[in-house]
């Protein structure tokens, strides 16, 4: 299966659906900062990987798939939930990339410039996530 981009999906997503995710992410950024201030960086650091945006994203995937089916004349469908389940499986792989991102920040930040470490860590997150996705596709039954 090839990876592709469907830019018409951007038109289906309403501005407030982006705003909700932006606000949730911003709220967790503030909470993580406050927790680190009160309980120290070891506790606060946990919340840098809090799945704050994920419930909103999965709910949107479900909603958009159900709307697509309804437009096609299928009112009752489990397709939305299944699409959200597949999306969550992808997020599980992405989270292993996220652990790699954190490991690189932990090890390299004291040695290199912050900007350089961020670039390397984001590239590592993307590479590890994509390789794991490819390996899962390759070895999963069709």
């Amino acid at each position, binding site marked *: 299966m090839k990876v592709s981009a469907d830019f018409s999906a951007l038109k289906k997503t309403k501005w407030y659906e982006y705003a909700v*995710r932006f606000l949730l992410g911003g709220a967790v950024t503030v909470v993580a900062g406050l927790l680190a201030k009160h309980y120290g960086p070891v506790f606060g650091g946990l919340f840098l990987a809090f799945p704050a945006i994920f419930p909103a994203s999965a709910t949107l995937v479900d909603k958009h798939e159900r709307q697509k089916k309804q437009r096609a004349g299928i009112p009752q469908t489990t397709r939305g939930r299944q699409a959200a389940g597949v999306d969550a499986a992808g997020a599980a792989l992405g989270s292993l990339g*996220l652990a790699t991102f954190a490991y690189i920040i932990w090890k390299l930040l004291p040695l290199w410039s912050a900007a350089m470490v961020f670039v390397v860590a984001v590239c590592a997150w993307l590479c590890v996530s994509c390789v794991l996705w490819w390996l899962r596709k390759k070895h999963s039954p069709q």
Partner: protein
Amino acid sequence: MSAFAALGDVLKPKSFAGLFGAAPSIALATLGLTIAANGKMYAAAEARSMIAGALVFFLYAWFCSWLMLRGKLKVMPVTLSALAIWLVCSISIWFFVLR
């Protein structure tokens, strides 16, 4: 954050787009602010704990996926209630291992 969210909306198939559900958007914003306020060593200590949080994110997302693909529960209750698993597991790791 919104850029990663937009990528997740645009890309196909859904399993690939899902990778962006675990994008380091919050971490980039928070670590950037932390470095400016408290320095690089403080941010590195946060990143060490973030490894544990990310591994628990894996359990959380896998569990949500399993429930949504096999169960009959709705998406929002599943993803929101499973956040309790993330909190319990992460705080337990902090208490027994990282502290």
